[in-house]
């Protein structure tokens, strides 16, 4: 048989169990509002204005009590004393809704690495002895660039994709086909882009050294 709404306990009002988690309470409150709101089709005509106001007031009090951890503890103690719900000393960790996106996923297991590609690249450029040897060498030519790239294990196609420099130009640069290189004004920019995409610093200086080498090579060749 029906019980008076005002005599229900807060859990019964919201149709949840005494062990409901906070997100369930919030969810139940929203569902109840949908039913009892003044413009709801469901409860239309079932209550007078006064009855509806009282119900909404009770619902709000129920929600505000249960959503507040301290208030809820007090209320639970009251209910437990009255023997309505079993007394629990510890409710254990609160349940949470299941995550759709697990942002706390361990790195190295699957999915995206934690660090971006660029920062890893920069790190390995700094650590690699052979690269620093090449960079401190006398000449920076196409072959030197190619060996840097091979050290980092990055395919030429990826550089072409990133820098938008045509693949055949890049090939010519690496193979040192001097007569087939683009004009110097373009070439310097291409070299810089190439170096930047490999995270080799300082791109400005190195590209200038490349251009100096090229000048010398052209004169001697």
């Amino acid at each position, binding site marked *: *048989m*029906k019980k008076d*709404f005002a005599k229900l306990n807060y859990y019964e009002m919201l*149709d949840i169990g005494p062990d409901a988690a906070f997100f369930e309470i919030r969810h139940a409150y929203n569902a109840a509002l*949908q*039913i009892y709101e003044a413009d709801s*089709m*469901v*409860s*239309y*005509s*079932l*209550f007078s204005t006064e009855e509806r106001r009282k119900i909404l007031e009770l619902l709000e009090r129920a929600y505000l009590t249960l959503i507040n951890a301290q208030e809820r503890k007090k209320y639970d103690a009251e209910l437990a004393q009255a023997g309505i719900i079993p007394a629990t000393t510890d409710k254990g960790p609160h349940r949470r809704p299941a995550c759709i996106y697990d942002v706390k996923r361990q790195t190295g297991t699957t999915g995206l690495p934690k660090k971006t590609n660029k920062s890893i690249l920069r790190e390995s450029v700094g650590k690699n002895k052979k690269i620093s040897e090449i960079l401190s060498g006398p000449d920076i030519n196409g072959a030197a660039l190619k060996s840097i790239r091979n050290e980092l294990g990055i395919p030429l196609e990826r550089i072409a994709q990133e820098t938008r420099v045509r693949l055949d130009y890049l090939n010519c640069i690496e193979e040192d086909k001097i007569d087939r290189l683009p004009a110097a004004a373009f070439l310097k920019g291409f070299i810089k882009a190439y170096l930047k995409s490999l995270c080799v610093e300082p791109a400005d200086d190195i590209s200038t050294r490349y251009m100096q080498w090229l000048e010398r090579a052209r004169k001697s060749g």
Partner: protein
Amino acid sequence: MAHIWPIGGGKGGSGKSFLTSSLGRLLAAMGKKTLLVDLDLGSANLHTLLDVPYPEKSFSDFIRRKIPRLEDVVLSTPVPNLYIISGAHDTLDIANLPYEQKSKTLRAIARLDYDWIMLDLGAGTSFNTLDFFLISQNSIFVTTPEPTSIENVYRLVRSIYFRRIRQYFTATEFKALEQEVTRKFGEGSFNKPDCIIQTIKTTHPDKGELLESDFNSFKFKLVLNQLRRHDNIALGAQICKIIEKHLGFHIEFAGNVAFDDRVHDAICQRVSFLERYPYTRTAYDLRELSKNIAQSGSQQLLLRYS
């Protein structure tokens, strides 16, 4: 004993007769001997929906004692296994069925030998309608997702409650009860079945107990008919929840039936919607509904007429 299912819903035009005829067709197709009784007295339509346009016998013949036994008024329909007691060509005063005739009808219906009997009841909450509801512990309420229709379902539920209480008392007892309830709960509380029940429990504990067991044994079902695409599909479940919580009736949500303009077309052409448009959402919903209903058994309430 037959499973008797009264189908009503308070408001007119919510599709009670269409639903009755469709469920009848589906249950008959399941191999169950099914009888549909048109108890929408005074505005009977069921024969039209079942393609029996000129029934030679009708419910009036039983009332006017032209045909003494109700089973002889039964007509067969073009659908195998499906039978109908038609209300076509009823006498014009049939809507105001006198009390003795009504009890006679109720007793006769309860004795009929069919697997399933569905009663197509009219709109409104007249005593006749309510008493036909109370013939069985099961019944189906039909509503549409409109405030007017939902309002009437609540009203019907309350009226059935009230009517059942009334059946346990004589007129003078009931009058005394009314005074007692008003004294206890204030003006207007006699309209609230729960106030009445509380009073009965103190004044007539034995009857209070009987009533309570009656109400607990009711297994009502709610069908949300004519659900349009943008309507809230959770509405039916919410209505059941609020009826259970605030009126104390157990009512189970049996399912939505989608709105379809072609229902109108099928009725105009006087063909079966289920046969003409079997692959529509509405036809699918109706089939699911019939399965749900075929699975739930029913028992008849013992009639109490003083």
